[in-house]
């Protein structure tokens, strides 16, 4: 299977065409923009934090299939997680795409993005939403 086939799987196509949690929240407690200045991709992540957990997550933005699918999958995965759990997911996701670490089972469908590691130019696309998440959860 080619690098591209390995990466652009059905799962990404689904999230690219029908992104989950795309939009804005009624009462966000955190709003965090994320920009990739080299290509102009941008998104805005909104979270509603409640009792130390991410009660709701939404995002909107424009960008390539990788960055949009990554944001869609992330927004679904982090719902209901405590802040340390969400940050741990971010760490594991980045380990997978930046360092090429074995995909952690907790990442679920996001493991489809493991191939990004071999396409260095796309690492910034895959991590755009995650960088915004880490920024949003900073104390």
């Amino acid at each position: 299977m080619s690098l591209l086939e390995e990466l652009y799987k059905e799962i990404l196509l689904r999230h690219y065409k029908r992104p989950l949690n795309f939009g804005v929240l009624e009462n966000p407690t955190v709003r965090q923009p994320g920009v990739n200045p080299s290509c102009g991709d941008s998104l805005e992540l909104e979270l509603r934090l409640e009792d130390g957990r991410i009660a709701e997550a939404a995002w909107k933005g424009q960008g390539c299939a990788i960055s949009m699918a990554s944001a869609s999958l992330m927004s679904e995965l982090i719902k209901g997680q405590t802040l340390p759990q969400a940050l741990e997911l971010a760490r594991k996701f980045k380990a997978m795409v930046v360092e090429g670490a074995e995909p952690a089972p907790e990442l679920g469908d996001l493991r489809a993005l493991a191939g990004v590691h071999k396409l260095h130019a796309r690492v910034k696309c895959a991590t755009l939403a995650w960088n915004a998440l880490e920024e949003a959860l900073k104390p």
Partner: protein
Amino acid sequence: MPLTLESIRQDFPLIAGRPDLVYLDSTASSQKPQAVIEAMSRFYRESYANVHRGAYSLSLAATDAYEQARHTLARFIGAEPEEVIFVRNTTEALNLVAYAWGLHNLREDDEILLTEMEHHANLVPWHLVARRTGARIKAIPVTPEGRLELAALDELLTERVRVVSLVHMSNVLGTVNPVVEVARRAKAVGALVVVDGAQSAPHLPVDVKALGADFFAFSGHKMCGPTGAGVLWGRAEVLQDLPPFLGGGDMILEVHLDRSTYAKPPQRFEAGTPPIAEAIALGAAAEYLMGVGMERVWQHDRALLEHCLARLDAELPEVRTFGPRGEDRGGVVAFSLGDLHAHDVACALDQHGIAVRAGHHCAQPLHRKLGLASTARASFYLYTTFEEVDRFVEGLKQVREFFKDWL
């Protein structure tokens, strides 16, 4: 050996050594011929010393080589050597003008006239200077075809306009702007005329005197030269009264603890040890291009462009290209494939060994005007072949096939 496309390709070690690669990003930076690599290497091996330290013969030889390069670059653009200032690149050249001229001449409510197709290098320096002087920025609009809206000039060129700074050839649309006409009309209201020649100097014959401008800026690395050396040309009368941009060694007449006087141009604008080897190699690049002939470089780019556009129009209806159709366009093809993001397209082309750029190409206002966040861009140069353009078109067809469910 007669000069053929094949012989030109053999002059470029990276091109000759990588038959698998289709390099279509010369607009971002060009590949280098052996003559340039060798000029830089030979200077370091045989005659390296700092310049303008005339006490010993090695430094005199280095100075001669550096000044010789200045003469060559002057010949390349039809200028006098004293008007050629070595800088790092176009960006530094435009910053030099914005700071040295702009800070001293712009007042509150003066106007700076730019265009909607400018590279960030000809926008941000003016933003910085406008903020400090209170001057205002206006822009000549771009038509849907990708040309400057000249009809708007009369209204835009008020007496408040003190400087008009525009790109000669767009790095996104390929448009070659009618600089002569804009300069003539700008001069009529007494404005300074600055030209961003980053794309025109490498791709078409340039005669700065005929343009009617005051400044012309270009980079070496886009015209077969090394990174780190570029040129700001300034008309002698304008340079004469221009205060320095950077201060330091080599640009002075006399220095006291609390004040200093400055050297004549061009030395006044070359503070510190310049990029000596890079400037010498840039001289070799200009010699190389003049050997090929800039008219020939331009005609080759044009022929590749027409071939590419004809095939895209006929065979890939899902591809939308940007930029004017006509003689006033160089070898740049910014495009989109359906609604696919440029990064996805460029990444897929890369899997076929085809190197194109994707993004906003440092022209966000232009992309905003086009209603796009980004485009992919293929660009050609003297070493690009028709077969490579064909491989690009065939590659795009495979990308279309791969993404057929995504389109």
